[in-house]
C-alpha cells in the first residue's frame, strides 16, 4: 500500500490450489502485487516487503507426506524459479484449467494490466503463452472462470473485468468528515468482461460481442459457472460491484442471455445493487439445484439467493440468518463447503473492509481494515448458525482477508482453506473436523482428455446420516435422497479451488451409488464407490 489510496491496493490478492505436478496433492499459487505510482519503490510502501526484489507470484509445490499412522506432514517448496512463471505485474487473481487437454493444469493470472496465461508443460515448468493465446486482456481483471460453454471438449474462459481505472487519473475521495479514503467503484466506469472461446489449437477468440447479448457489464469481482436450470449446459453468474449482477443463461447455440433481473439474481429483495465480491454456487438445501451465495460490504449483509430449479431465485439472506450475521463485516473470498462432512454445505467468509474502520483509525492502527473471518454451519432447515467462536483460535485473527481457495490440501477427507490477506501473511487453515466423519472423494476426469471435467455434476445417493436427518423440511427431503455436487475450480474471490468433489457422508460408512452428469450430456452410474478415499471416475467408465 502506497498511502495514495490507489484502487487496486485494496482489492487483492487471490490464491490458488491446484495439482500442477499431478502427484495427487494440491500445490499453491500465491498472487503478488507491486508498488503502484510512477517512481515509487517497494521500500516506500506502508508495509515494506522484506525483499522487494522477490515481489512476484509464487508457485509452491506441496511435498505432502502421509505417515504410516495416517498423520499428514505438510511441507511446501518454493519452485517459482524453476517453474518458468514470471509474474511481476500487479496481480489480482488466479484461475486454473487444462486449456490444451494434455492432462496438466494451466494457469491464468488476472492483473491490473495485461493478464497472463501460463501453459503447463507437464514437466514442472510453464511457458508464457499470453500473447499467443490471445487472452492477454489489458483490462483491470479480477476473477476468471474456465468452463466448456459450448460442449466441444475444450475449456473456454470468462474473465470478469472491473473498472476503467488509471493510476494517473486516480480520483481523490473523502469521507463526510473530510478525511481521505478509498473511492467507491462508482467513481469510475466499469469495464466489459470478456468471453474467450478456446479454438483447440492453443489460441482463444474473443467472442464477447457475439456471445453475450442483452446485458450491461458492470464492475465484475466474482465469477462462477454452473448449470442453474439443469438443462445440461453451463451458465455463468457474475457478481458486480454496486451494479446489477449478471446471470448469463446459456442459449445452447454459442450465445448467452442475461436474465438476472427477472430471475431475482441481479439485486437484493429490496432492489439494491450491492457490492458483491465473492460468489459461489452450490446446492445448500440439497434439493438438486445450484443456489448462490455472495459476500457484501459492511452494512449490506451477505446474500443468499435460493434457486427453485428453473434459474429463478428468491432472496433468503435475512431468513437464513446469513444476512444479519454478516452485516458488520465486509466479505471477500467465500465458498460452499461441507466443513463437518454431515452432507450439508456450510459457508466460510474471509473478511476485511475497504473503508477504514472508525475505531481502528482513531486508534492509529496502521491497517484499519482488518476483521475476523466467519464460519457458518448449515442447520439443514434453510438457516445457518454462526459457529465462528467454536471454530478454533485461527478465527480470532483479525486480518484484511481477500482471496480464499478451498480444497483438501492434506488429502484427509475434509476441505481446508488457503487465504490471501491484503498487506498480510497468507494463511492456511487446516480442517480437523470433517475427517472425523465419513466422506466420498471424487475426481471427475474426461474420457479422452484426462483433465478435470469442470461442470460435471455428481449425484450421490446419500444413506441416512443419523442425527442430522431430522424430521421436517429440507432434512427430510435429503434423507436417503440424492445429494448433488459439482466439479469446479472457480467461485470465491479471484481464486482457484480444488476441482475434486468431496461429499460428506456423516456417520454412514456404506459405499454409495453415484451418478455423474458429464458436461457432454452423458450420464453414467457407479455403484459401491469406496468411502473415505479419493476415487477417480473417468467418463466412459461407468454404466
Amino acid at each position: 500500500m502506497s498511502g495514495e489510496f490507489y484502487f487496486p491496493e485494496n482489492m487483492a490478492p487471490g490464491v490458488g490450489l491446484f495439482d500442477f505436478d499431478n502427484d495427487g496433492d494440491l500445490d499453491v499459487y500465491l498472487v503478488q502485487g507491486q508498488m503502484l505510482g510512477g517512481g515509487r519503490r517497494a521500500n516506500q510502501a506502508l508495509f515494506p516487503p522484506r525483499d522487494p526484489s522477490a515481489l512476484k507470484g509464487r508457485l509452491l509445490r506441496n511435498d505432502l507426506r502421509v505417515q504410516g499412522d495416517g498423520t499428514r506432514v505438510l511441507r511446501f517448496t518454493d519452485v517459482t524459479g524453476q517453474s518458468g512463471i514470471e509474474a511481476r505485474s500487479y496481480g489480482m487473481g488466479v484461475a486454473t484449467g487444462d486449456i490444451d487437454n494434455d492432462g496438466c493444469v494451466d494457469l491464468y493470472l488476472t492483473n491490473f494490466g495485461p493478464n497472463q496465461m501460463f501453459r503447463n508443460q507437464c514437466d514442472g515448468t510453464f511457458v508464457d503463452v499470453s500473447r499467443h493465446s490471445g487472452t492477454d486482456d489489458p483490462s483491470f481483471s479480477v476473477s476468471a472462470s474456465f468452463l466448456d460453454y459450448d460442449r466441444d471438449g475444450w475449456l473456454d474462459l470468462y474473465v470478469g473485468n472491473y473498472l476503467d481505472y488509471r493510476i494517473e487519473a486516480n480520483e481523490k475521495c473523502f469521507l463526510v468528515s473530510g478525511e481521505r479514503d478509498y473511492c467507491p467503484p462508482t467513481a469510475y466506469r466499469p469495464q466489459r468482461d470478456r468471453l474467450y472461446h478456446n479454438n483447440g489449437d492453443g489460441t482463444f477468440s474473443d467472442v464477447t460481442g457475439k456471445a453475450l447479448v442483452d446485458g450491461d457489464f458492470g464492475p465484475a469481482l466474482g465469477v462462477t459457472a454452473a448449470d442453474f436450470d439443469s438443462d445440461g449446459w453451463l451458465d455463468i453468474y457474475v457478481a458486480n460491484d454496486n451494479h446489477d449482477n449478471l446471470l448469463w443463461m446459456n442459449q445452447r447455440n454459442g450465445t448467452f442471455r442475461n436474465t438476472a433481473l427477472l430471475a431475482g439474481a441481479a439485486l437484493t429483495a429490496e432492489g439494491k445493487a450491492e457490492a458483491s465480491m465473492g460468489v459461489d454456487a452450490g446446492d445448500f438445501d440439497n434439493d438438486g439445484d445450484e443456489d448462490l451465495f455472495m459476500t457484501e460490504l459492511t452494512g449490506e449483509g451477505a446474500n443468499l439467493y435460493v434457486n427453485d430449479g428453473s434459474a429463478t431465485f428468491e432472496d433468503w439472506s435475512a431468513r437464513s440468518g446469513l444476512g444479519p450475521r454478516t452485516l458488520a463485516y465486509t466479505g471477500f473470498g467465500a465458498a460452499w463447503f461441507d466443513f463437518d462432512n454431515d452432507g450439508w454445505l456450510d459457508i466460510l467468509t474471509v473478511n476485511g473492509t475497504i473503508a477504514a474502520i472508525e475505531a481502528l483509525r482513531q486508534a492509529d492502527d496502521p491497517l484499519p481494515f482488518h476483521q475476523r473471518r466467519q464460519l457458518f454451519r448449515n442447520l439443514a432447515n434453510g438457516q445457518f448458525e454462526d459457529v465462528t467462536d467454536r471454530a478454533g483460535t485461527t478465527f480470532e485473527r483479525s486480518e484484511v482477508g481477500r482471496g480464499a481457495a478451498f480444497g483438501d490440501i492434506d488429502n484427509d477427507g475434509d476441505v481446508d482453506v488457503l487465504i490471501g490477506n491484503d498487506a498480510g501473511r497468507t494463511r492456511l487453515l487446516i480442517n480437523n473436523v470433517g475427517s472425523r466423519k465419513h466422506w466420498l472423494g471424487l475426481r471427475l476426469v474426461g474420457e479422452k482428455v484426462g483433465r478435470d471435467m469442470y461442470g460435471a455434476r455428481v449425484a450421490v445417493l446419500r444413506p441416512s446420516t443419523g442425527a442430522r436427518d431430522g424430521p421436517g423440511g429440507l432434512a427430510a427431503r435429503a434423507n436417503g435422497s440424492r445429494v448433488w455436487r459439482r466439479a469446479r475450480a472457480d467461485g470465491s474471490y479471484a481464486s482457484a479451488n480444488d476441482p475434486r468433489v468431496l461429499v460428506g457422508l456423516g456417520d454412514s460408512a456404506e459405499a454409495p451409488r453415484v451418478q455423474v452428469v458429464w458436461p457432454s450430456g452423458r450420464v453414467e452410474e457407479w455403484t459401491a464407490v469406496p468411502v473415505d478415499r479419493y476415487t477417480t471416475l473417468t467418463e466412459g467408465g461407468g454404466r
Partner: protein
Amino acid sequence: MRRVVRGIAVAAVLVGCSACGSNVAPSADSSSPIGRPQPGAAVPISRLPVVLPDLSRAAVPVAQQLRERYSSLMLKAGSSTTPIAEMAHDYGEMGKLLMAAEYRDAAEPCFLNAQALAPDDARWTHYLAHLYRLRNEPARSAAMFERTIQLRPGDAGVLSWLGAVYLLEGRLEPAESLFAKALSVQPRMAAALFGLGRTALAKGDYPRAVKLLEEALAQDPLASAVHYPLAMGYRGLGERDKAEAHLKQRGQIEPAPPDSVLSELNGSLQSALAYERLGTRALDKKEWVEAAAYFRKGVELAPDSASVRHRLGTALFMTGDARAAMQQFEEVVRRSPDFAKARYSLGVLMLTGGRESEGIEQLTAALRFDPGYVEARLRLGEALRRRGRFQESLIQFEQTLEIDPRNAEGRFGFATTLIRLGRYRDARVELIEGTQAYPRQPEFGRALARLLAAAPDDSVRDGAHAREMARRLLEERQTIDLGETMAMALAEVGQYQQAAALQREVMAAAAKAGRPDVVRQMAANLALYEAERPCRTPLRMDDPVESFEPVP
C-alpha cells in the same frame, strides 16, 4: 472495537465532574441511571467520558465545528450549576454533530449521557436506535427503537423503522405486526405499506404483497424502490409482463418513514461531502431547487471540489437556468482542466446553444482526458456529422464500438454516418445486423427502410422490402419521417401518385407542427414524385431518422 480514551480529555472530564458522585458509568442497556434526575436541578449524575476523535485529517470547517461544540460542552459539563435538561440537550447536540460527521463511536457516549440525564426524552433513544442501525448492530438498534416506542407510543415512523430492522433480521412476524401497527396510526403511510408488502413477499404471499406494494406506490409515486419488490410480486403471480414493466421503472428512492431526528441531522454538519450527498438525494427525487441549494453550500465549503461544483451546474441546468449552469461548468474547467465530466457538460450545453465549434472542442478535450468516455464520444460523433465532417464522425463511432462492441447507439451512429459518406452497401450490412442485434431499437429499421427506398446505389435498393418495412413501422407509430419513408418506398416501386399524395399529407402535418423548414425540404421530393421520378437522397439535412433513443 476498542475505545480510545485520551489522557487530556479524561482529565478534563474528571476535573469538570468534581461534583460528580459515583464512578459507575451508565451502560447502554440500563433502563435508568443511578438516581432519577430532577429536571432543572444540578444533580451529580455519572456520565460516560466524551472524547473528541482525532480531527487532524478532517476538513477544517468540520474540525472547527466539532471543537467549538465540544469546548462549549466541556465548559458546561465542568460547571456544577448547569441544569440537567440543558446538559442533556448539549450532550445530545454534540452526539448529533459527531453522528453527522460519521464519528459514530464517539457519538455513542454523548447520546447515552443525554439519555441518562433525560430518560423521558424519546429523542435520545431514537438517535441511539439510528446510531446502532448505522453501526450495523440490529439487535441494539431494535432495543432502542422499542424504548422509543415506550416513550412515544403513537409514533408511526418509529414503528415502521423497528419493523424494518426486524425485516432485516428475518423476523417476519414481529415485522409484520409493527408495520400493521404503524398503519393503524397512519393508514396511508407509504413506508409502512412498503414494509408490509416486502414482508408478505418474503412469506411468499404474492397477492397480498402486490396489493400492498401497489398501495405504497399510489401513496408515493416517486418511491422508485417499490418497483423492484412489486415486480417480484408479479413474477410470483406469473404475470411476467407486469413484472417486466415494473423492473424498467426500478430505482433507489425508498418511501421513508417520517422521522424528526433524521431530518434534524441533515444540514447540521458543515461538510462539503455531506451537502453533496444531500444534494444528490434531492436530484434523485427531482427536487432541483433544493439540490442546487445543497450543492451551493458544498461549493462554499470546498470551492475547488470539481465534483460538487459540477453537480451544482447540473442541478442549475435542471432548474432551467442554463446560463448559470454553464458558468459553473466553466469554473470547474478553469480550476480542474482534466475533469472530463465538466468538459462534457460544457460541450453539450454549447452544442445546444448553437456554439458548435466550441462544443466540439470541449468534447474533444473531454476525450483527451478520458478516452473511455463513451457518452462524450457519441455526442462528438453526432456533432461532427452535423457539421459535415463525416470521416471524423465515423472514427468516433468506430472507437465507441472498440470500447463497447455492443453499444447500440454507437452502432447506429456508425451505420448512418456510412450513409452520409455514400458507403451504402456497408451501411446496409450494419443496419441489417443492427435490426437483428437490437430488435427493441426501431431506429435501425427506420434507417434501413430509408436506405432500401432511396439509396443511389442500385445494388442496395429494394423498394418492395422498404415498403413492407415502412408499413410495419407505421403500424407501431406514425411520424412525419416514417411517412416520408413510405412515400419514398412507394415511388421506388413505381406508385408515384400514391407517393405524391402521401408526401402532401406529410408536408401538411409538418406545417401543422410548425416546421416550415421541413416542408421546404420535402417539396423537392414531391416535385420528383409528381414528375414520376424516384427519390435518391435517403437522408436530408438534420434528418430525424438519424436520432437515437436507447431503450432501457
